[in-house]
């Protein structure tokens, strides 16, 4: 117990406390923290009216919700389609989860090549088909990084949904077939409601992760053009390094941390609520049977 607590203190709480402390100070990287001036909540207040920060926050929120929405849609859809015993299905499933196993930097590079204005495969196809080129990483930068992220992370939703699907009670689905449910009706009335607990946790996990996205976007666009793909993680890094405003960067990190904390608490709250409910049901049943 004690060694674990000490390591936790050093590895986790020290940097955290350091960052929170730093966020209340006007802090240039050339200064030591003890030499900085206390400015209260000034960093936080300043950020709220900082258009670049608001823009960056908007980009992050847009990115996270859009990717998670499509990843859920495609991932769950694929799971519903592939939940059957066909020959070669296990190979297919392995292929499906490959994108998730590739290092994010590699994914970013790969998509950057594919999106390349003249040599990228997408624009070459478009020109071969006689269509206009698309300015993927320029005009449509956010859409492009969203597509890349969907490609990489849909498999995560897919394997978790598939596992959820395959653990559904078979007989309930058979009962639904006998009751006259079509394939669609089975999905809507039986499969999705029964998968919901897993799907909610999966979605929250994915959302938490999407807020922290960095590498793929860094490699693909470096946040540009302009601020169009500058997600919070990038903004924080730039604030700290280019603008040399460590206090502001720390405050920004804390905003992000708060956001993530809300999501994490939501997830824990949900699982705890479910466990409590299961517990209550078990007690109730025992009382009745005993």
């Amino acid at each position, binding site marked *: 117990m004690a060694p674990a607590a000490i390591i936790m203190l050093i590895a986790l709480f020290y940097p955290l406390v350091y960052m929170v402390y730093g966020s209340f100070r006007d802090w240039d990287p050339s200064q030591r923290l003890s030499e900085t001036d206390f400015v209260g909540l000034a960093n936080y207040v300043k950020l709220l009216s900082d258009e670049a920060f608001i823009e960056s926050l908007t980009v992050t929120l847009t990115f996270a919700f859009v990717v998670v929405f499509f990843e859920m849609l495609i991932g769950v859809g694929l799971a519903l389609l592939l939940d059957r015993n066909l020959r070669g299905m296990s190979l297919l499933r392995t292929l499906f989860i490959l994108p998730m196993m590739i290092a994010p930097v590699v994914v970013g590079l790969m998509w950057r090549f594919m999106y390349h204005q003249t040599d990228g495969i997408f624009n070459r196809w478009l020109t071969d088909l006689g269509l206009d080129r698309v300015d993927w990483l320029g005009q449509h930068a956010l859409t492009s990084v969203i597509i890349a992220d969907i490609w990489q992370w849909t498999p995560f939703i897919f394997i978790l949904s598939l596992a959820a699907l395959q653990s559904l*009670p078979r007989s*309930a689905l058979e009962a639904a077939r*006998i009751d*006259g449910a079509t394939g669609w009706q089975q999905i809507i*009335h039986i499969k999705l409601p*029964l998968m*919901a607990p897993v799907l909610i946790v999966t979605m929250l996990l994915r959302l938490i992760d999407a807020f922290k996205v960095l590498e793929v976007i860094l490699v693909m666009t470096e946040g540009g053009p302009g601020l169009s793909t500058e997600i919070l993680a990038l903004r924080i890094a730039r604030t700290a390094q280019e603008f040399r405003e460590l206090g502001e960067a720390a405050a920004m990190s804390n905003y992000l941390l708060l956001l993530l904390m809300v999501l994490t608490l939501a997830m824990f709250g949900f699982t705890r609520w479910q466990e409590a409910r299961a517990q209550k049901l078990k007690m109730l049943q025992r009382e009745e*049977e005993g």
Partner: protein
Amino acid sequence: MPRIQLENLTKKYGNVEVLHGIELDMEDAEFTVLVGPSGCGKSTTLRMLAGLESVSSGEIYMDGKPVSHLEPKERDLAMVFQDYALYPHMNVARNMSFALRLAKRPQKEIDAKVLEVATMLGLEDYLARKPAELSGGQRQRVAMGRALTRDSGTFLFDEPLSNLDAKLRGQMRAELAVMRQRVRKNMVYVTHDQIEAMTLADRIVVMHSGEIQQQGTPEHLFKHPVNKFVAGFLGSPPMNFLDVELHYRDNQVFANGKGFSLRIDADLAARAVKQSQRHCTLGIRPSDLDFDANAGNNAALDLKVSVSEYIGSQSVLICECGEATVTVEVKSETPIALGEVLRFAVRSDAIHLFDSETSTAI
């Protein structure tokens, strides 16, 4: 309420054939029980009838129409599953009304039907509960209720009582028998429990390793089993089997075993003579042996009592007869002592003989 016919029905999983040409006719409003040990193919047969398993060859007819290519919902049937298969996220009322809601019946009609069935099954106080909030017996009832609200022509039951404890099972069995009187529908019931089969069935179909062994009324099967398997499967405690050798003497036939010689009835003897049997298996039910010290030599077994199981008004004695074990059912007040050799009269009309090689009844 269709007449259901299974014609030369087979089922293969890969290269393994698990059902070998099932032929079965079920009359309108008949309660048919498929019974057999696990792995005998009874559940597979039921699931093929339901449309949950494909038919490898052969055909299922309902009122003369082939249905094996139809989806379950097109076969007009309702089914009760072994694990109840309730929808965990719906309350009792919604579980019971699911089929009607899918069929887009008017809400008024659905509510009325659900209430009617729930009242019949004593579930009206539980309509708002989820399945997880119910006891095993209540869940079982909801599963029945869900089948009953459908008003289907055919009801299928796949071992519906096997997840209940013994007391509840007896109670539900009685309730099923009562429901059976009210609902005159075609019912097909699968069980491995021969008591359920005997008490509920109009027609029992005994299955073993993918084949029908015998079918008929419970009484007929109990009294005239066609082979050793059926004889041993129906009845509790099960029939005793003893190896015997037939001897022909003075126009009479005697079955001789270790330490006994029983005279065989004329009809049975004639059949044995016709088939020129010599070595065979003698079957006698525990209830057909009577404690009687004065019984004649050729109509009695001398048994050494090794265990006595008291079960109330009756006791089951486990006795030694040479190397074989014989169980006897006697009234509990019968004066017996363990280790004693007692004489039990054998009712001559209760003796069964089976070919020792093919196991078929003689």
